[in-house]
């Protein structure tokens, strides 16, 4: 009896500590932007909207959010379209060594956008005149996301029986019609998963845009956040917290919207 009670108390305490560990930073993010004198601890704010006003005085803040949006949407669109086509082909056509190819791509993808390949990537972007362009950032980030996206989408496509497509073929549907009428609607949750995952990834990317973009007019939020320091190099917590809040809102809104609309679930990327 006592043992049971002790176990329950122990479990509750453990969960409370874990919950606190994860919720305190979020609490900070919710309170600090409205605090006249934020510190790195969470406290009841001395309420003000002043932080937002001084943040908006920074000319790059709003444009950086627009840039983030542009790069994230561009990469997500590119990744979804290319990954869907590649995954469909890989799932339906027997290519020798297909699985080996997928695993090698997956392995390389962490290298492609990783720190290790940054120098050659920079070199490549320079020669292709892609430095200081959104396209350069979009292509680089998409390249890194594609293998994993193909891998996950191929799993979705493998899970849909080919008899649907064959049935449509017998009725005379063309390959594009089959893709539009049958395959895409069936793997829509997978496509939504990939799109959200790509947006979230690009939204948080710092290194690639930091290196590939010189012009602060084109920099995304992650890079601008890095500039919110005093001349002395001390972080300006009022601006950083306020910007962080603004910066995270679009992603949260997107999650809620897509989850409502498509009911996608992350089961380690694998549906069912």
């Amino acid at each position: 009896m006592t043992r049971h009670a002790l176990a329950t108390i122990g479990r509750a305490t453990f969960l409370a500590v874990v919950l606190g560990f994860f919720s305190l930073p979020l609490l900070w993010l919710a309170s600090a932007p409205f605090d006249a004198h934020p510190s790195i601890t969470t406290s009841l704010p001395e309420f003000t909207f002043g932080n937002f006003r001084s943040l908006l005085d920074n000319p790059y803040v709003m444009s950086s959010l627009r840039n983030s949006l542009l790069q994230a949407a561009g990469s997500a669109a590119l990744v979804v379209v290319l990954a869907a086509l590649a995954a469909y082909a890989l799932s339906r056509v027997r290519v020798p060594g297909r699985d080996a190819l997928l695993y090698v791509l997956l392995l390389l993808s962490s290298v492609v956008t990783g720190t290790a390949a940054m120098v050659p990537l920079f070199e490549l972007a320079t020669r292709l005149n892609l430095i200081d362009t959104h396209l350069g950032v979009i292509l680089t980030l998409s390249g890194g996301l594609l293998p994993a996206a193909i891998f996950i989408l191929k799993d979705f496509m493998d899970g849909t029986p080919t008899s649907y497509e064959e049935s449509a073929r017998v009725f005379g549907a063309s390959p594009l019609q089959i893709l539009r009428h049958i395959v895409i609607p069936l793997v829509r949750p997978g496509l939504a998963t990939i799109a959200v995952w790509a947006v979230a990834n690009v939204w948080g990317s710092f290194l690639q845009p930091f290196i590939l973009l010189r012009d602060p007019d084109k920099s995304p939020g992650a890079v601008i956040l890095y500039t919110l320091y005093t001349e002395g190099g001390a972080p300006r917590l009022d601006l950083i917290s306020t910007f962080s809040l603004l910066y995270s809102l679009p992603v949260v809104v997107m999650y809620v919207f897509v989850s409502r609309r498509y009911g996608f679930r992350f089961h380690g990327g694998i549906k069912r």
Partner: protein
Amino acid sequence: MISLSGLTKEFPGGVRAIDSLDLEIGDGEFFALLGPSGCGKTTLLRTIAGLETPTSGNIGIGGADVTGLPPGRRDVAMVFQDYALFPHMDVTSNIAYPLRIKKVSRARREAKAAETASRLSLSELLARRPAQLSGGQQQRVALARAIASRPQVFLFDEPLSNLDARLRLEARTFLKRLQRELAVTTVFVTHDQGEALALADRIAVMNAGRITQVGTPSEVFHRPADPFVAGFIGSTPMNLLPASAEGGELHVAGAVLPLPRDIADGPLLYGLRPEYADLSQSALIGRRDAFSGKVAVVENLGTAHLVTLESGDLLIQVVVPEGDEPAIGASAWAVPRPGRALLYRDDRLLTGA
């Protein structure tokens, strides 16, 4: 009309699913492809539909050679074994799908879908998704979709095998009436000999990628061309016993039977359906034309019983009417009815005996 000549399909890896097959199927015929699982029925159907490319041979539909045509241009409709109803479309959109491909206007194709649906008593279900339908309803939606495309040929892959036993009989009758009304050439695949006998105008029995016999249900049932067909057709398996012809007499399992004319001496295979023998439980004095044995197993078939006699190391099965079933272990005699047995030599049917 469908004509296949020298049709062969070899899968990568060397499996010959269809082996140089020739077949003619007439206009409006209800044609069954019957055979055990794995004999190549589905592959043959898919090859006719154009979903598989034959390794060699030709396919003609309605007089035109369609071997090189893609499935969509062969004017066929196929009902898949799992029905392949599009799960994200409601019943109306599923039935109307072939018309959508043919660029029929939305209003017209929905009217057509509703008309076809009412013919198959699906009118109440038009707004449902396939997941909300029972197996029998899904099967009818799949049929309706095939009908809506107004093809020259229907191809059905095991159309009834996903239904439960009770529903299967109803669906069978329904399917037969529907085919009669539509009068469209129909090829259907089944591994169930009862289904083939009940539905088809003609049956092709397949074994290991080849057709062993083509005929009407009655021909295939009464004169199976080889021991394989003999063993495959019939709700109870045919007795197939080693026999020999000697001096004008037929010796089978200890019995001596009259030998039909024109059969040379030598070993034979004697085939007798369990329905075509009578069981006697009193000793038949002085008669040599009966198989004697001990009752080993009695199986209840409902209105009859299937009795298995042990005669030496041979087993002989006889169907006995209700109420006449013997006790296990009793001695009994099976008397073949005259003219009902079949004789095979070198796997060819010689004649009835």
